[in-house]
Structure formats: C-alpha cells, structure tokens
C-alpha cells in the first residue's frame, strides 16, 4: 500500500469513526439481560424483536445481552448492580422479586407508568400478577410464564384398558390409573411406571401443586411467613411420597427434572408432570399419541405459576426507563405475546393474546396449547419470600429427605418450617 493510499484509508477510517460516534450519542441506549430456559432458537427470536423494535423507534438503541440460565442471570445482574453498572431492563424469575427489592436493585413500574398505562398494567392474567406485585406496587411485568400440566401417553392408556382420551380428574383417579399403568415382570422389576413427578433441583415447585390442590399455598402474600408444617401440606407430601414408597407406581428416590421428558419419549412412564414450557419439545419428539391436561384435583385443582418477569433497574436515567417501558409494552402487546407463546410453549400473558386470530388458529389445530390457559384460574403464586433462595432450600431439603425415605413427611416439613421461621424472623 503506497503512502498516499494509506493516509487516504486512515482518513476514511477516522471519518467513519467520528460519524459513528456522533450517531451513537443521539439515541437512548437500553441494555437488556435475558436468560434462556427452554429449548429452541430463543436468542434469534429476541435479536429479531430488538431489530424490529428499533425500526419502529429510531430514537432507541436496544442492546439484548444473553445472560445464561435464570440462576446465572440474577448473579450477573446483582453483581452488575454492586459494580454500579446494572442493565436497564432484565428478565429474571418472578420469584426473585423480594431479593431484588431487598438489594434495592429495582424500581416499581408505577414510578415510570403514566396514568394512561394503568389499563395495560391490568391487562395481564391476575394469577401472573400475584408474583409481580407486593406492597401495592407492580415490580415485575409477566413475559415468559408457565404452569405445570399433566402429559399422558394415549397408547399406554389404551393398552391398560383405560379411555385414552380421559385423563385422571382427581387424586384418587390419578393413583388408580397409575396402578393400572405400572408394569412389573415376575421378579418385581418395573418396566413401565404409572406416573413420574420430577424432584431434582427445584422440587418445591412441583410440590407446591400438590399443596395448592390440597387447599393451601405455602406462603403469605407479604413474603414473610411460610406454612410448610400445616396438616394439609404434610398430607400433600404424604400423597406424593406414597405414590413411590407405598404404592410403588412412581420411581423411588429423586427423579431428575432434565431427563423426565426423555423418559416419557422412551416410554418409561405413562404420565408425567412438567412445565407447559416443554409443550413444543414433547410435540416434536413424542413418537406416539399424547394428551395434555390440567393437573388432577385434590380438594381443588391447582398449580403454581412459574417463569420470568421484566424488571426495571434503579441506577438508570429517566430517558432509559421510559425507553425500557416502551419496549416492555411493545413486547407484551397481544399479537407479539401470542407469537412468543406459539414459538416457545410459554403461556401468553394476557387474555387478549388468546383472542388474536393467529393464536385462535393455533389452538384450533393443536388444542393442548389452551390447557395451560384453562388452568390459570386455579393457578397461584409460585413460592417466593424474603431471603427466597434459603427459605426455598429449607423446603427442598425437606422434600428430598422425605422422598428418599430418610425422614417422615411430618418430620421433614416440621424441620423445614423451623428453618424458614429462623430465616424470616428479621423481616417481620
């Protein structure tokens, strides 16, 4: 390269740099952490949203940052807060609300919303808002939310002489079906289990469904009290433990969350409980006819909600907050919420999303997609308290102790409650 050409080239570079800087100064930059917790090309979808949103709003530069699992995402977000460089917006577990408030990391959406936005804030399913509001303020906006549903293998139902189109409706039926569906050889080895409810990692979430079905939730709305040792809760745990240890229709010990869908595909069990977020996965991989149903009722039907909310961070400028709110509203409008639900299997977060033509057609072609929605009226807030991870761990340890047979359900829940009381005493 000659000297003249080189200097021309350098001048060109400098010019491009200057204009790039001038351009970058103008728009409001909004950094946005998001985790990925289900299969599929989520990263691509989110990048697509960002590009589309920027096209509609030229004054805003949205910078989506993939931040790992939910667990890694909150670790990153809180570390960034401590280093005074938090994201403007982030999707984190709805149950992280109290932790984020206690760390003084987030602001309520009410601080940014104008009176005209109130109608939008009320457009979400109320059961999703239970985990998003406390003390009369809205701290989170539902985005990727789920509940637990029952999947069943229709071929196995037929083989066991059951109606393949009728899932169990009550706890008694669930046990009865599971007994008919469990296959043993002469020496007692099981080749096919009746039912499987995973218990690794976060057994509290699955267990919460049993407890709600038995009439109680596990905590109060202020997040300062747990009810682990209520008789109804102990009875709910006994039902789960008995499925495995007494009736032997459910595998013993801890059932891995991650391999449960695979066990289902491999025809190792006839019924499984897992998240609606697995719907697309099961649809693509099950080589047999399957059904999806609401969880059976104990005293009532019930499931906890789950999944992630949008949160607004505190150390941000008013312009950034406003831009972030604009994006949150844009991402939760009915058509987009519907498409997001179809692409991922998450439950669309507003009733209006289920009224859109695209969702109506999807539900018509694939009715299981509506099961989670129909279950929402029975859904309750996921377990979340102050010092959430520790209070939850106390329950997880108790559940695993009972499921592996080292403690009776009663002893396990009493120990868990004592530990939770100790942890929560300073928040009352």
């Amino acid at each position, binding site marked *: 390269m000659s000297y003249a050409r080189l200097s021309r080239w350098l001048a060109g570079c400098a010019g491009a740099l200057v204009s790039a800087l001038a351009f970058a100064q103008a728009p409001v930059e909004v950094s946005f952490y998001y985790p990925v917790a289900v299969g599929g090309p989520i990263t691509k979808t989110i990048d697509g949203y960002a590009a589309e949103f920027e096209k509609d709003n030229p004054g805003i530069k949205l910078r989506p940052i993939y931040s790992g699992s939910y667990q890694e995402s909150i670790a990153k977000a809180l570390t960034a807060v401590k280093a005074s460089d938090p994201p403007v917006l982030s999707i984190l577990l709805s149950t992280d609300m109290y932790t984020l408030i206690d*760390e*003084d*990391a987030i602001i309520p959406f009410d601080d940014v919303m104008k009176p005209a936005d109130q109608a939008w804030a009320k457009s979400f399913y109320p059961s999703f808002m239970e985990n998003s509001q406390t003390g009369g303020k809205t701290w989170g906006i539902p985005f990727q939310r789920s509940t637990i549903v029952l999947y069943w293998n229709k071929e196995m139902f037929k083989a066991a002489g059951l109606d393949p189109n009728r899932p169990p409706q009550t706890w008694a039926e669930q046990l009865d079906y599971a007994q008919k569906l469990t296959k043993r050889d002469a020496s007692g080895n*099981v080749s096919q289990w009746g039912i499987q409810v995973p218990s*690794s990692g976060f057994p509290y979430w699955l267990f919460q469904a049993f407890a709600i079905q038995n009439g109680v939730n596990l905590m109060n709305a202020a997040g300062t009290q747990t009810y682990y040792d209520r008789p109804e809760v102990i009875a709910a745990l006994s039902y789960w433990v008995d499925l495995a240890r007494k009736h032997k229709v459910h595998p013993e010990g801890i059932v*891995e969350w*991650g*391999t449960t869908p695979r066990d289902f595909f491999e025809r190792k069990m006839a019924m499984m409980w897992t998240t609606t977020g697995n719907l697309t996965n099961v649809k693509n991989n099950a080589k047999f006819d399957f059904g999806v149903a609401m969880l059976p009722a104990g005293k009532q039907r019930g499931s906890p909600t789950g999944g992630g909310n949008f949160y607004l961070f505190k150390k941000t400028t008013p312009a950034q907050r406003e831009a972030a709110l604009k994006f949150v509203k844009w991402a939760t409008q009915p058509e987009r919420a519907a498409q997001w639900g179809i692409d991922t299997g998450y439950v669309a977060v507003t009733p209006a999303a289920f009224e859109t033509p695209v969702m109506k057609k999807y539900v018509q072609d694939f009715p299981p997609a509506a099961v989670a929605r129909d279950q929402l009226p029975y859904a309750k807030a996921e377990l979340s308290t102050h010092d959430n991870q520790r209070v939850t761990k106390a329950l997880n340890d108790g559940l695993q102790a009972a499921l592996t047979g080292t403690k009776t359900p009663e002893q396990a829940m009493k120990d868990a409650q004592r530990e939770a009381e100790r942890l929560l005493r300073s928040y009352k």
Partner: protein
Amino acid sequence: MTRTTQWVYGWLMLLPALFLLALFTHYPAVANLWHSFFSTPRASRPAVFIGLDNYRTLVDDPIFWQSLINNLWYALGTIPLSIVIALAMALWVNGRLAGRGLLRLAYFTPTVLPMIAVANIWLFFFTPEYGLLEQLTRSFGFATHNWLGSKSTALPALMIVTVWKEAGFFMIFYLAALQSMSPHLAEAAAIEGASRWHFFRRVTLPLLMPTTLFVLVNAVINAFRLVDHVVVMTRGGPDNATSLLLFYVFETGFRFWDSSYAATLTMVLLAILATTALLQFFVLDRRVHYQ
C-alpha cells in the same frame, strides 16, 4: 557487580511475580478474613462489625458440617484410589506393548475434556432405567437403581467421576518420572536376581516418591476445589448428600447473596488447605528420597 546492585537486580526480577501473587492471592485472602468479621451489607443497612458471630453461626450450621464431612469422605474416597490407578496405568503403558501410544492417549483423554462436558456424559451413564450403567447391571439381572437420586449412592457416584477424570492426569506425571529413571537400575537389579516385585518396592517406588508427593498435593487441592460436576449432576442434593464445601461456599455467596458468611466458610476451606499443604511439605517431605 557489587552486592547491592546484585540485590537490586534480584528484587527487580522477583517484583512482577511478587506483585501478581500479592494482588491475586495474598490480598484476597486477607480481605476475605477481614470481611468474615462483618455482617453482609444490604441495601438498607451497611456492613457492621460483628466479631465472631459468623463463626458462631458456622458452628451451629448443620449444612456446613454435612458439607465438611461429605468433603472428607470425598477426599478419602478419591485421592488414594486415583493415585493407585494412575500408578498402575503408568507402569502398564511404560512397558513395551503394541498400541502403547493409543493406550496413553485413551487414558489421558478424560483429563482434556472439560469437567462440565464430562459431568453431562456421566449424567447419562447414571440415568435410571436406560442409562449405560443400568443397561449393564440389568443385563446381569440386578434390580434397577437410582444412582444419583438416593442419598447412599449419590456421593460415591460423584467419586467415580472424579477418579475417572483425575487418574489419567496423575498418570502423566508418573509416566514422566518412570521414563526419566535410568535403565541401569533395572539391569543391575536383574543381574543381582531381584524379583520384579522386589525391584518395584525397593527401587521404583522410592524413586517415585517426589512425584507421589506432588501428585498427592494436587489431589488434595482438587478434592476441595473441583465442584463443577456437583453443579451439573446433583446441585448438592438429595438433601445435601453431595454438598461439598466449595459448592456450599458458592451457594451461600451467589445464590443466597450472604457474602460475609461465604467469606467465613472460605476461611475454613483456606485453613484446611493450608494445614494439609504444610503437613505434606514439612512432614512427608522429610521421608521423600530425592536423587
């Protein structure tokens, strides 16, 4: 060159390494000790000096004690076994046999693989019903067993993964030591009519002692340092049966956000490692024969 300039040169050469060591090893250790005497700062209340309160909590914390005991069993189960296997493998691939290079490669492969990947592979091996291990045991007519899902077998299952992962790594050190050993020794022993076992016990093993000490130090550190597979395979469950000390530190620090209690736990870990290192260097080192 005068003594003074020599002295200055010496220190100047040491300085970069000393600076990095102080910045990334000594300062964090001291800061950690300092933080363990304070409460965890929260948004509404800053850290206050609480003296030995964190240490009192520690003594009363059943999960800490269980993690510590788990870790001791884990160390006891993995260190001697992986050293013996490493030595056996090294002796074997040091001999003349066909496909020696391939065999060495096979033994070393587990070391090259990242622990996260290894843990995911083993997760499949241990899967109940259709996992590799289950297919094997079932073909012999044993009943199915939930290896990672029972309190009694979860920790041993993790130990197996560790031994499998570490033995190949230690083998490399033994192999290097064996190859640097003079062949005259073996010839001399053969002329004297020493049996192979006698030669191994009286000549090879003593000459391998420096390597063994080095491997032992590494094995002990790794027993307290490697927790990736715990995160992937069991997350400390069932009911803390596989919670190791460092995993509990991580959980306390980055899930419970209780940084000062995590610092307190780290001090225990530091004390254990420092004591074992000192013991190994000052007590065992005297019994080691260097050429």
